[in-house]
């Protein structure tokens, strides 16, 4: 069934929100009243509900099936979290109402901070960043501020970023005014230590390293890397996107990390919502703590206080966002963490890693791995070498998965693997679910190798749409609905 756009079914005079016309009064708008038509169609409630229910039915979701997107950690989103985030005491409080009227909110932020600092072994935290990339910017600004405080602002501008990094890493570093240098990967998919050392020098400000990295591997030389950075007066930024592999198993603070953002929407189960919102608190080492942005919590006589402005003598680098961060996500994350507890979080990491390795061990005879077959962390990386003889691409394979009822894995990322297929099952899948997924992938892989190419190149068939023409979309961008000319 096709579902039109609201602009095709709505009417400007229709509304699904009943409001009485106010009593006549004298406007204070001056000359600025808006008179021209705006162009917004309205729907009655039954129409709106049906429209968006039908749209929703065209989406895949973690609730309906395994969602093996590597580096995205599509885990189960507990429903308790949603209920808690909707308590009026959290959802219906204003960021600028008197702090005396929101002690429980400050307590909650403090609790989330305590959990995150304890899990990472880090002494300080900035809670306000709104998502992962925002957290990266926060951490890199703290680093830049620390460098400036040492009088090295003009000389120390190089940030090392491994080739396998998320695109946000170089983008964030550049945003903050650093220059990015790539660090090559060694044959085992980890940082090439020798190449890394060769890049070091007094102009190096930091390294941005994802650990476990986006090949699903723990950077075993991490302590050496951290030490080397510190030895040249530089800092170690850790991209925490893959923290889900090691919660309760290792603490970034023990590994020499200076700053790391935590994606509450990955590791701590807040829903992805079709693209957001996320939340990206940043834990900081003692040396970076003084530079943390406002607002932050301070324990004072009489309770917690949220410091919204820093004094002139403060080293705080400033402010990242209008208010205090993603409160709604903090509530969900605490609900998740308190539910699991220290033991459950550790178990979750173990299950995530076990499930990824189970998939690896169940597919390694058919599919190729760019860095050989060895234990991975919470995600397993395949490349397209095994697919080469078939003439099919990673994209073809991914689209064929849709017809089998699965969301594809992350494809063509990381860039260090050719035709990458990055599979992250998370800890939320039962063994039966993993077994079915494995059987499906084996079946598809064998079909590909048998030369059944038609099953792939035309895929997907059993989806709301066949393959979409992305080139057309980009060549002549149609980014909003416009009223068709009358025929």
């Amino acid at each position, binding site marked *: 069934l096709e579902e039109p756009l609201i602009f095709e079914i709505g009417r400007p005079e229709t509304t699904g929100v009943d409001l009485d016309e106010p009593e006549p009064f004298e406007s*204070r708008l001056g000359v600025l009243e808006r008179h021209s038509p705006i162009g917004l169609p309205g729907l009655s409630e039954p129409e709106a509900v049906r429209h*968006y229910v039908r749209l929703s039915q065209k989406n895949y979701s973690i609730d309906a099936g395994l969602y093996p997107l590597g580096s995205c950690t599509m885990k189960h989103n507990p429903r308790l979290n949603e209920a808690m985030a909707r308590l009026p005491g959290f959802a219906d409080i204003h960021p*600028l109402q008197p702090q005396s009227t929101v002690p429980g909110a400050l307590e909650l932020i403090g609790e989330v901070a305590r959990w995150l600092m304890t899990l990472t072994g880090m002494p300080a935290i900035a809670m306000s960043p709104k998502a992962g990339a925002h957290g990266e910017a926060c951490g890199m600004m703290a680093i830049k501020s620390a460098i400036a405080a040492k009088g090295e602002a003009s000389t120390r501008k190089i940030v090392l970023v491994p080739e396998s990094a998320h695109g946000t890493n170089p983008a964030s570093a550049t945003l903050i005014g650093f220059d990015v240098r790539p660090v090559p990967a060694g044959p085992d998919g980890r940082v090439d230590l020798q190449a890394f050392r060769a890049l070091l020098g007094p102009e190096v400000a930091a390294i941005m390293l994802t650990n476990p990295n986006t090949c699903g591997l723990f950077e075993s030389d991490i302590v050496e890397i951290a030490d080397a950075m510190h030895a040249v007066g530089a800092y170690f930024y850790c991209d925490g996107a893959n923290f889900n592999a090691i919660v309760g198993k290792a603490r970034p603070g023990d590994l020499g990390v200076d700053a790391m953002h935590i994606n509450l929407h990955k590791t701590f189960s807040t829903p992805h919502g079709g693209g957001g919102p996320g939340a990206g608190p940043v834990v900081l080492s003692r040396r970076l703590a003084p530079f943390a942005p406002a607002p932050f919590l301070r324990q004072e006589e009489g309770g917690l206080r949220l410091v919204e402005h820093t004094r002139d003598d403060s080293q705080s680098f400033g402010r990242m966002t209008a208010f205090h961060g993603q409160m709604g996500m903090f509530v969900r994350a605490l609900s998740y963490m308190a539910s699991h507890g220290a033991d459950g979080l550790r178990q979750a990491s173990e299950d995530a890693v076990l499930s990824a390795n189970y998939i690896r061990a169940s597919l390694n005879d058919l599919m190729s791995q760019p860095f050989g077959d060895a234990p991975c962390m919470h995600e397993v990386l395949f490349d397209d070498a095994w697919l080469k003889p078939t003439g099919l691409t990673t994209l073809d394979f991914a689209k064929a998965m849709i017809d089998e009822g699965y969301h594809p894995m992350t494809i063509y990322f990381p860039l260090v693997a050719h035709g990458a297929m990055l599979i992250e099952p998370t800890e939320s899948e039962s063994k039966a679910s993993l077994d079915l997924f494995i059987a499906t992938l084996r079946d598809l892989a064998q079909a590909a190798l048998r030369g059944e190419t038609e099953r792939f190149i035309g895929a997907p068939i059993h989806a709301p749409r066949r393959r*979409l023409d992305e080139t057309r*979309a980009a060549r002549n961008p149609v980014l909003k609905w416009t009223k068709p000319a009358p025929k």
Partner: protein
Amino acid sequence: MRYLPLTPEDRSAMLARVGVDKIDALFESIPANKRLSRNLDLPLRRAEMDVQRLLSDMASKNRAAGSGPFFVGAGAYKHHIPASVDHLIQRSEFLTSYTPYQPEIAQGTLQAIFEFQTQVAALTAMDVANASMYDGSTATIEAVLMAHRITKRRKAILSGGLHPHYAEVVRTISRMTGDEVSSLPPDVPGAENLGAEIDAGTSCVVVQNPDVFGNLRDLSGLAAICKAQGALLIVAFTEAVSLGLVKAPGEMGADIVVGEGQSIGNSLNFGGPYVGLFATRSKYLRQMPGRLCGETLDAEGRRGFVLTLSTREQHIKRDKATSSICTNSGLCALAFTIHMSLLGEAGLRRLAKINHANAVDLADRLRRVPGVEVLNQSFFNEFTVRVPVRADALIERLAEKGVLAGVPASRLWPGESLDDLILVASSEVNTDEDRRAFVKALKGALSC
């Protein structure tokens, strides 16, 4: 543990397939002396009931906006959200899906984004809008950086009527990038002469409407000066409902429009998550930050939607990207779109009118309180009052009387000698009774 489906037997069987005898064998790539061998010093797992109790106890210590007369604004606004909005965004298929990188099975999210982009463009009277930013303040700095890219200049002028937190975000990032920022002092009457500040190095002027003190500003003249000087006019707003009644930035010549979309469809949430709106002229499209959804056709020629122009984005362009943003405010944008679809043009206009009427009524009542002065010539649903005592202490006293009466200017501009000013907002949720309660409490507080 209720969220972990694997049983001990499953784990054993899986370890066997993997070929190791214990789970820690899979963690051996972590340096041995860094591996944790026991639980961290945190509570152990808890029953759902116990977690519910823990969080409910915290929540119950906070005074919810809906529990009494409430007039706090200054960048976030209490509005009524239709019950169907929350029902719909909680649908599993919206709530638990990822960014729509596989468009064939994400048409629901994509079509909703396309509707969102169209709504935002219409509201702001601009050509194109993106799929959302984190919030209004981060959208503002993105707009400044975009202006720098377009003009190849590096100086931003910030109006004294711009929300001070927005200004501070711009200054913070600009300090890092080495760009220049000229921030004008707090402009209570909304009378500053921004045009006079523009010079040949000026990349953009950022001005808010209604401004943070509530004044409405006719920006047409400023737009003309900007154009003449080769600078871009960035117009920000914090109250999206105002666009139903107040001339749109696009109608006054804005080049980039940014704003906070929380008012439509999103709860106060103590400041987040919110949804940043971002719109611009077509000619600047390729310098725009953030995700975009575009229309296309599928292999059978049916209309469909995809993420497009992603060569601007970090996951393709890396350090050359127009922004580092990845996760945005997808679900908040969906809430915005659903609420706006329910309102429609007629509903939005009426909602805005009620907001304005309520604010006018409140202003008229407050100005009759001895010693209290309403400073605005014009306003939408928020205005500034001068009180004869310290505003912050007064606000606390009113809170004790059950009225959350507004934001003391000193909270936003500490040390700027605005200690006797309060920003007061009134929306459709305020009843006549609420406004009377405010006046009564205010009189009481001032007389003691």
